[in-house]
């Protein structure tokens, strides 16, 4: 059977030769060209690609999938693909929401999940991990030995370390532990035309521009990460949970700004606008209709007590105790709604952006007001989930059903376009932690200006044949 909706990309001229060479070097059992595997790697968690799947459309299938088991395998893959001009798409947990792994030009998907060893260097407070290591596995193993990395994204269960670095991700406890960029101390990469490079995990180094930062967030466009060294912490000795109900979003945002300014760093802070407060805390009568804030303060006993004092002094709102925080802790990995609503034709997505304090409320209002009037939108809401002394991350959620004569993709892009324009016009940045992928690439030039040309020049120098995730981020 040849399904009508499966689109085979133009086969790279030397594909068979390249697959043959790689197969000879790393073993044929690590490569598949079976249709069921190719279709399984034709998407990630980008809503557009999920929509394709629901409609039985597969417009971006690769020609092969490879599962390397060590660095040497990865070197062979990059070496032969580069020689034969075959595109490579590095793949981790597939939980990225912007299409960064979608093999739009055909070629090979390189799934790194079989590279998953880890080693804890307790005295140096470092963990060394292969890029395919599962996030939960890493954190659970660290906890068992009395440590934490503190990177707990909602995708902790399905995602990989390589995916975290590739997308410059961060987790729910970031306000204390930072993003992956604060944790990554060393990195091992395989770059075209099949070379290995290693930036060692020194405590600090002043040896020219920090190339670790170059690969952070490069989304597979510059090479394949094979290993990383990350900062870890002793497990916190104390954890406190606080929550507040404020009359307005402005009150809650201003309170957190002052808390941050005083130097307190609660690991988790989440402020929900009125819609999201109703959505997440419908069980709590006293919060319903208000703006809820939940906080987790953790770490050294004395420091956390001092942080708690600062929070209590600065926060404008009624204290609501631990229960709303427990509710958040229990439900924070729940992604049920997308699975329930998307197959019913509801277009649903989240858009995370960042902005400095002085423009925060203005940006929030502008984005919500840009999305809501679009015909078909059911709701647009946000919570603020990550905080810095300089500013804030807003995480917008929208859902809608396409109006007549408009298909889901068109409707989806209309909402995105409105949101991105509002963010840029309001002085924000188009992405806080999901990255760029194929969904946001059209706004890169506007976001980065001349720096985008510099990025393109770097790409050109490192990957002249443009085999590494071609088209992703517009590169």
């Amino acid at each position, binding site marked *: 059977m040849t399904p009508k909706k499966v689109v085979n990309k133009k086969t790279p001229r030397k594909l068979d030769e390249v697959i043959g060479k790689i197969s000879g070097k790393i073993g044929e059992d690590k490569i598949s060209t079976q*249709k069921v595997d190719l279709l399984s790697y034709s998407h990630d968690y980008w809503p557009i690609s999920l929509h394709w799947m629901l409609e*039985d459309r597969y417009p971006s299938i690769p020609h092969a999938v490879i*599962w390397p088991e060590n660095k040497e395998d990865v070197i062979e893959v990059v070496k032969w693909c580069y020689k034969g001009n075959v595109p490579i798409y590095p793949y981790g947990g*597939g939980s990225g929401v912007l299409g960064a792994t979608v093999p739009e030009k055909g070629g090979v998907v390189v799934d790194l999940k079989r590279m998953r060893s880890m080693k804890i260097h307790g005295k140096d407070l470092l963990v060394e991990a292969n890029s395919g290591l599962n996030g939960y596995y890493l954190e659970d193993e660290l906890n068992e030995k009395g440590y934490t990395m503190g990177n707990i994204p909602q995708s902790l269960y399905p995602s990989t370390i390589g995916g975290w670095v590739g997308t410059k991700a961060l987790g729910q406890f970031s306000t204390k532990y930072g993003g992956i960029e604060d944790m990554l101390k060393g990195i091992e990469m395989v770059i075209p035309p099949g070379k290995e490079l290693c930036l060692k995990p020194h405590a600090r180094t002043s040896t020219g521009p920090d190339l670790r930062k170059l690969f952070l967030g490069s989304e597979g466009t510059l090479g394949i990460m094979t290993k990383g060294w990350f900062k870890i912490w002793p497990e916190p000795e104390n954890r406190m949970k606080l929550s507040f109900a404020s009359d307005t979003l402005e009150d809650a945002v201003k309170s957190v700004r002052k808390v941050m300014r005083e130097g307190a760093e609660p690991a988790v802070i989440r402020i929900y606008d009125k819609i999201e407060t*109703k959505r997440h805390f419908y069980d709590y009568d006293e919060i319903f209709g208000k703006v809820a804030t939940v906080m987790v303060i953790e770490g050294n006993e004395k420091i956390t007590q001092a942080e708690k004092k600062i929070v209590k002094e600065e926060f404008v709102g009624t204290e609501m105790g631990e229960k709303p925080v427990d509710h958040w802790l229990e439900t924070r990995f729940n992604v049920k709604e997308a699975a329930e609503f998307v*197959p019913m034709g*509801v277009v649903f997505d989240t858009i995370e952006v960042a902005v400095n304090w002085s423009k925060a409320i203005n940006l929030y209002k502008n984005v919500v007001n840009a999305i809501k009037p679009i015909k078909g*939108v059911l709701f647009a809401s946000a919570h603020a989930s990550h905080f810095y002394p300089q500013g804030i991350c807003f995480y917008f959620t929208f859902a809608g059903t396409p109006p*007549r004569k408009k298909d889901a993709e068109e409707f989806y892009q209309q909402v995105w376009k409105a949101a991105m324009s509002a963010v840029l016009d309001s002085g924000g940045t188009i992405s806080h932690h999901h990255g760029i992928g194929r969904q946001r690439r059209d706004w890169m030039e506007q976001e980065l200006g001349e720096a985008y040309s510099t990025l393109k020049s770097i790409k050109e120098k490192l990957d002249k044949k443009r085999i590494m995730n071609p088209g992703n981020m517009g590169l």
Partner: protein
Amino acid sequence: MPGKWDWLKDEMGGVSKITKFSTVMKFLKGRVSGPDDMTKCAMCPNMCRHACPISIVDGKETTSPAGKSRVGMMVEHDVIPMDEENLYPIHICLSCGCCEKWCPFDFSVSEILKPEKERGIDEGVVFEQFQEMFDNLENYGLVQGGIKEERSYPDEGNILYLRGCEFRGGDEKVIGKTMGAFEKLGLDAFVLSDEECCGIPAYNAGNTQLFKELARKMAKKIDDSGAEKVITSCPSCAYAYRKLYPEFGLNMDVEVLHIVEFLDRKKNMKGKKKATVTFHDPCKLVNGLENNKGMEDVLEKLGLDVKVPRRSGDETFCCGYGGSTVCRLNEGLSSRISEERLDELSSLSDKIITSCPTCKKAFEENGDEKVYDIGELLYELL
């Protein structure tokens, strides 16, 4: 108190009626059920991936939990044909149920994909490796086919001990020791000389018809035995008798317990020897029979120094042979899972205790570590 969807109804109140609007509203009011289970699973970003031994060790999207449902969806929608190549990833499942704990819908992937497996059988897409097992079950009532047992045991008593195919066809000495341990505990145990398979291997492989035939036979034999209680060495058997049989209308009068559940209830049971041990929780004991602490509690009750593995209780990690299908279709993958589990356990103690014949077999075939069944251990300690 506001309802779960009141916030959305409030928001939608201001939206003009548009395409599909009414469907969403009907769903919110509970008037339509929403997508089917396989579609919901397929639309999940694999929130149980970390718990799935296949996904962790095999590392393939195609055989990941949500990946299997996506393959199921592709077959169901005729994107790819129902053939061995496409049925294969669906069967690369240990039926361990480790996914269920993490699923917001409480799905077990092996159950969700059961209709696809059954469809495969109905349409004659049967793996050679499964056919051999089906033939053995049909002709001999046992997974391994005809077996020769060296010892015989009492065929009358109060407590019926069901030994299971794996011990009868493989590690028969465990049966002798378990019966010996029962004697030391003062139990009047007996066996069925014509014991047959509970049927669960056929169930896992999608041959529900064969499962039902075997189940009917065994339910009758157990009922006819007159036993006051049934104890099994195999947690999958206990799961089948207690959980699956009633789903197919086979309700037996007698209580069926896995040996760990039985020992867990027993008081004043102190071992005579001291030792440091670790243990492997069989998946059907913790996820099927929902006994999360049984192994640990029983070993502690016996006075042993127990090293608890990171992956234990309902976060256990399958031995690699669970479900009867993976070890038949991809021996190498089963072995790699066993080896990974053994590495973890042997780093804690050189004495590994389990309570499942299949787990014991998996570990003994893939490592040099000494692995004891709980029945053997009991015999040595009492």
